[in-house]
């Protein structure tokens, strides 16, 4: 086929390509319920995917640009918008970074409250992700159960922060307000019930032969590729790499808690879908330990000065969010607002693996592979 020669000056970004009669190009998304707010341009030969090109950006909101014109406190609510279900964890690196910049100490009780809130949020996020994974694979029970069970922790977070999602609960220097009275008892009761409940997911979902047949040996990511592509979170740990920021570079009080890293070796979609579930069980352990060790009273917030100015020139902090390491790079120029703020998030880092995993797969396996990447389109776009 003849080369396409653009006749006049092309608008920026316009792409022209030759077409092949045998290869069909298929746009999955951005409105497809199976893709989230993103598009995957798949090229198929019969039933097999020969090329896949992720095209994110449909929910790009310019969080990084917005952060440059707001001060360190007013940045809090909008920076958690990329993942409203996991709003504590996405805000965590920013809050830690600002504390490093201006050099303030966080009260001990606030550190424990933050760890508990972060783990509750991790469970809320993973439940939502798991519900969608269930419905992707046509397992509607797995959609109903997590969607219902996550209400437990959403109610708990509502009691703490006043909002069901988008809590804006973490602030540099601690947390916005103290937990309500008898929080420890309510939380412990709910966590115990939640743990019992999610163990049942194993019977209905993870040991289900149909699910195993659909996800095992599909989209295999080897250990070497997982490292080379710089993947993170559950994708990395499902490929046999023992790396969890909570263990490797503990922040707040994670070094005083016993955190187990869940590592599976297979690297296929099944392993990638199982690691988050194991993470939820681990979160229950962490919350129980934190409730036990938390000081029963004390300050929960060190006040920031109004219009705080950064002391250090730059800071890079990272935490383990529900989707892997979330990093925040802040460049400060002695002004009340950040000079540059960069969010490096798990979804964006894992996206690079998608073309590798999809090539050679059957089109029918695409949802199983795609959603197993623990990908959140809004977070990747920021």
């Amino acid at each position, binding site marked *: 086929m003849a080369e396409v020669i653009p006749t006049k000056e092309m608008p920026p*970004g316009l792409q022209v390509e030759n077409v092949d009669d045998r290869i069909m190009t298929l746009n999955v998304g951005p409105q497809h319920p199976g893709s989230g707010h993103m598009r995957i341009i798949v090229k198929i030969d019969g039933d097999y995917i020969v090329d896949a090109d992720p095209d994110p950006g449909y929910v*790009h909101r310019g969080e990084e640009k917005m952060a440059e014109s707001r001060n360190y406190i007013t940045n809090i609510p909008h920076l958690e918008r990329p993942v409203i279900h996991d709003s504590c964890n996405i805000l965590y690196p920013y809050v830690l970074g600002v504390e490093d910049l201006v050099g303030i100490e966080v009260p001990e009780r606030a550190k424990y409250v933050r760890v508990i809130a972060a783990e509750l949020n991790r469970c809320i996020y993973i439940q939502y992700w798991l519900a969608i994974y269930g419905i992707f694979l046509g397992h509607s029970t797995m959609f109903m159960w997590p969607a219902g069970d996550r209400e437990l922790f959403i109610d708990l977070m509502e009691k703490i922060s006043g909002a069901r999602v988008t809590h804006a609960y973490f602030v540099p220097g601690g947390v916005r307000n103290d937990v309500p009275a008898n929080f420890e008892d309510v939380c412990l009761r709910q966590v115990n019930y939640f743990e019992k409940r999610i163990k049942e997911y194993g019977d209905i979902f993870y040991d289900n032969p149909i699910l195993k047949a659909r996800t095992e040996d599909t989209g295999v990511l080897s250990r070497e590729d997982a490292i080379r592509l710089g993947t993170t979170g559950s994708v990395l740990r499902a490929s046999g790499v023992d*790396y969890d920021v909570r263990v490797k*570079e503990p922040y707040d009080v994670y070094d005083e808690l016993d955190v187990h890293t869940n590592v599976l070796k297979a690297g296929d979609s099944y392993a990638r879908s199982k690691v988050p579930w194991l993470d939820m069980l681990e979160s229950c352990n962490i919350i129980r330990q934190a409730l036990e060790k938390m000081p029963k009273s004390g300050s929960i917030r060190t006040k920031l000065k109004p219009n705080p100015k950064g002391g*250090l020139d730059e800071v890079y902090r990272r935490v383990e969010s529900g989707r892997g390491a979330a990093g925040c790079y802040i460049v400060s120029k002695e002004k009340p607002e950040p000079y540059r703020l960069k969010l490096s998030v798990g979804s964006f880092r894992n996206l690079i693996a998608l073309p590798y995993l999809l090539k050679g797969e059957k089109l029918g396996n695409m949802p199983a592979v795609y959603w197993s990447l623990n990908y959140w389109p809004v977070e990747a776009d920021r």
Partner: protein
Amino acid sequence: MSTTETKSPPKDPKKETTPEKVEDTAPAFEKSYVDQIANQFSDDVEVEYIKENRTRLNVKKEKIIDVAKFIKDNTPFDHAESVSGVDFPDEKEIGVTYHLGSYTDPAYSKQVLALATRAPREETPNPGNDSTKLPSLRDMFYSVEFHEREVFEMLGVYFEGHPDNRRLLLPEDWADLPPLRKDFKNKGR
């Protein structure tokens, strides 16, 4: 503006003070691998120990490929966590910072090495066709592929040697300034 000028990479005065400063503040572990790099590229690499586990190497753009290759071959850093572009209009430069991490060596799992370089900046950018260019590190660190695409569209830094310098997040018909440059203003702000 006076504050920004003091922060610009000072050439001569700082070079005299760095040796003592390094011995005072440099943590032992970071020093062990940074010295390896600094010895190899003595004049081209400027080391900053920002805080514990965080080290920054300022490298000239002509040497960035060599330094990255050396890091890849001789230290356990194996992936890039983040690539951030920072616009410095006063200095007529755009900085690009690669944050490198290591999965393979548990001793290095806390370390983040920031590899920073700067590209010239033009007043009226023409992304891809002006002097704002840097060599791509994709051959050394495969994980920078999407990050570099993002820096290209957001700041107009073209990465030479990158196989796929297309738009990633911005709309295809975006014809305005690269949005993360400082002269692109938010409406109403």
